[in-house]
């Protein structure tokens, strides 16, 4: 009898916990590609440079991609590299944009279960919104650029704009294929989300879209002159994707103005669930989020102290700026705990002079730097 009872309890617990496990394990698992790329970059000893032609080998045991994603990659040879570089690019951008904030986008590239960014993805706060948007933007960006570069077989330059356009210029050259990038990212990134019946799903979909829109928004025209030197009698122009830094900047701005949203009535309105437009601002007096706004549905924690549930270590030991009144200032970054000051002596090369021929001679300067770290 006792055995039967235990069995039922165990079964019940398993049934209750198993779906949750599945849900959490599914979140953005394709981001794990970034770690694969990181390992390969390390092996090639050329960090940050995309490795053209070298195939990414995915460890089948870790299988970061789901069935639909694998099919997409198979049908578009070359996209896996773009996704890998994109993921790396996004992580770097996230860390750059948040370097002055309490949450500084910590990543663990070996953490496959929680998809690189850790448990923050289990929440629906502003930071999570940014991660989703920047990841999706990076895929659209990289795929669009790589189409034009010719490393993806199923697409090429965007030739839709043709012929004379302005008074002294005409379309020509090879435009970055942002349309393909966007569409591919939509198919690929959105396929990562499985739990279609929650606020979180709608929020994530919205943020994915916002990231892609941010890429398309920042598209700019680049031109080149032809004709006699300096004359510029004929100008050909093409559309080029922005530096990813610009996309990051624009997303960071969206992050600051992100709207807190809710789904009006999730039980009855099945139609709104399928569409992302089902989100409304939590405070009815606030502006409705547009396609390019980031949205979230949970409050951010203050990220001051070590939070094992989030996997965030807190701001202890972080370097801060005494004079700044912003979030990187010691007052706000250290959450009022105070800071320690220490002098660090660094040796730098200075007063370098060029000597004929051919060497540069430098002196060694000793500089003391004052460094403040949070307690």
């Amino acid at each position: 009898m006792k055995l039967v009872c235990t069995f039922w309890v165990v079964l019940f617990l398993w049934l209750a916990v198993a779906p949750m496990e599945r849900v959490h394990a599914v979140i953005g698992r394709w981001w794990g590609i970034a770690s694969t790329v990181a390992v390969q970059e390390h092996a090639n000893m050329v960090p940050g440079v995309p490795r053209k032609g070298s195939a990414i080998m995915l460890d089948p045991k870790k299988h970061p991609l789901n069935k639909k994603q694998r099919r997409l990659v198979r049908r578009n040879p070359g996209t896996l590299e773009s996704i890998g570089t994109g993921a790396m690019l996004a992580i770097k951008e996230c860390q750059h944009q948040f370097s002055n904030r309490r949450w500084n986008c910590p990543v663990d590239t070996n953490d496959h279960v929680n998809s690189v960014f850790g448990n923050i993805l289990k929440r629906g706060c502003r930071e999570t919104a940014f991660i989703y948007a920047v990841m999706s933007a990076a895929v659209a960006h990289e795929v669009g650029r790589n189409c034009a570069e010719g490393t993806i077989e199923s697409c090429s330059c965007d030739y839709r704009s043709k012929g004379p356009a302005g008074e002294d210029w005409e379309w020509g050259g090879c435009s970055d294929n942002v349309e393909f990038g966007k569409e591919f990212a939509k198919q690929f990134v959105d396929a990562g989300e499985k739990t279609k019946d929650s606020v979180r799903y709608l929020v994530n979909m919205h943020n994915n879209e916002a990231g892609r829109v941010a890429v398309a928004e920042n598209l700019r025209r680049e031109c080149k002159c032809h004709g006699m030197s300096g004359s510029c009698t004929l100008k050909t122009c093409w559309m080029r994707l922005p530096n990813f830094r610009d996309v990051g900047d624009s997303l960071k701005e969206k992050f600051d103005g992100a709207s807190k949203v809710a789904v009006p009535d999730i039980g009855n309105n099945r139609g709104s669930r399928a569409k992302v437009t089902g989100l409304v601002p939590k405070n009815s007096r606030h502006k409705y989020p547009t396609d390019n706004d980031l949205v979230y549905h949970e409050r951010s924690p203050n990220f001051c102290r070590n939070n094992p549930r989030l996997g965030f270590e807190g701001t202890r030991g972080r370097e801060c700026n005494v004079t700044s009144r912003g979030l990187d200032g010691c007052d706000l970054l250290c959450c009022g705990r105070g800071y320690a000051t220490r002098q660090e002596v660094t040796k730098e090369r200075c007063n370098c002079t060029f000597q004929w021929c051919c060497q540069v001679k430098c002196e060694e300067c000793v500089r003391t730097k004052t460094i403040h770290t949070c307690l």
Partner: protein
Amino acid sequence: MTHRCRPIKALLASTCRPSVRSRPMETGRWSAALRRNIFMNNADWSRLAERRVIVRGADFTCWRSGRDLQRTHPKDSSALDARMARNGRRRLSRLFMELLILAVLFPGRSFANLMLLSLSSVGSSRSGRSVSCGTAPGLIGRQKRLCRKYSHAVPSIMDGANKALGECRAQFSQERWNCSTRGGTQTFESFLGKGTRETAFIYAITSAAVVHAITQSCSAGNLTDCSCGRVTGDSDTLPARGSDLEGWKWGGCSDDIVFGMEFSKRFVDAADSRGRKKRSRNIRSMMNLHNNEVGRKAIQQQMSVKCRCHGVSGSCAVKTCWKTLPSFKRVGDMLKKKYMTSVPILRKTRRRLRRKQKMHRKVPIGDEELVYLEKSPNFCKSDKKRGIFGTRGRECNRTSTGPDSCNLLCCGRGYNTQVVRFVERCGCKFVWCCYVKCNTCETIIDKHTCK
């Protein structure tokens, strides 16, 4: 020895005990320094002659009558010492316990500032309602006496207090601390309790505002004790008459700052100059007095000469000039600049204020520098106890990079966006005869407020 009490809340009158020696500390919250002075050797009784007494928010004044004072004033401190010794150890220990309890119950003194006055009765000077000197908040005994003596100056003081508050709000409208007084007098008082840079600014601007308002009233002829200033060559660096070549002379009604300065000094400084001797003042009072002086000097420095031409149009055959007060906005600007460069000071005094910075400790602090004791909080989060309201809900500027930018003002919490529709009349035209025809224009703007 007897005590006379003038209770405001009759209920609490009994707490003012008739005997000062048996249970002396029941009567008020006195500063620790003063307590020591009384019960140790050099008791300066004259200083105790008048004191503002606050018992649990009630407000009444107790003072010893002059006759009693004469009688009991110890000629030398040894007489008091001997009497104290006779009381025995038991009494002393009881006294100590009482002191301890009082120290716990009333941890600090109240900080009076005229801005409190403007909080309680904003606009009352305009509406002509007279302010009762006895019940006005932010005034202490000596100020109340002055208030009764110069009762006709009260509207000017009120005007000054309002002016100070208005200018403070204007100067700090874009900062995290926006001179907010939402919580009423008590919250504002607790904000003044900390000797921060913001407090320094408040003291300076109130003191300056009193000078400004009183001087303006003098020139307008509203006060009987002063009038337009007569500028003479002796008292000023400027000549009594302009040289004949320049062809101008003093004339018109010059603003006489002397009375205003003196009045402000007596009235505003009264709150902090209870001790006659400088030594007995605590550091916070010294900080306030210094900042009051900085405020007054800011006006004095900006006095300027205005001239007007007379004679055939455009000829300027005769020019009369007079001295005029600066606009109060200019004074505010100047004090804001001083606020930005204000100087932290040491808590330990050696009869004068000293800089906290070790390198410059020898450099004396001049009348042009505001001083503060404590570091300001960041004003990001609301802390009602300390009179801080936080920046939640404050409007911010998305594109700016200054202190009003959403990034700095919202302390990184981000902002909400509201769509606001403005309907206004525009493109107005005069149509003969006689009406004005306007269109209605609608503008839709995004309003950003801090989360």
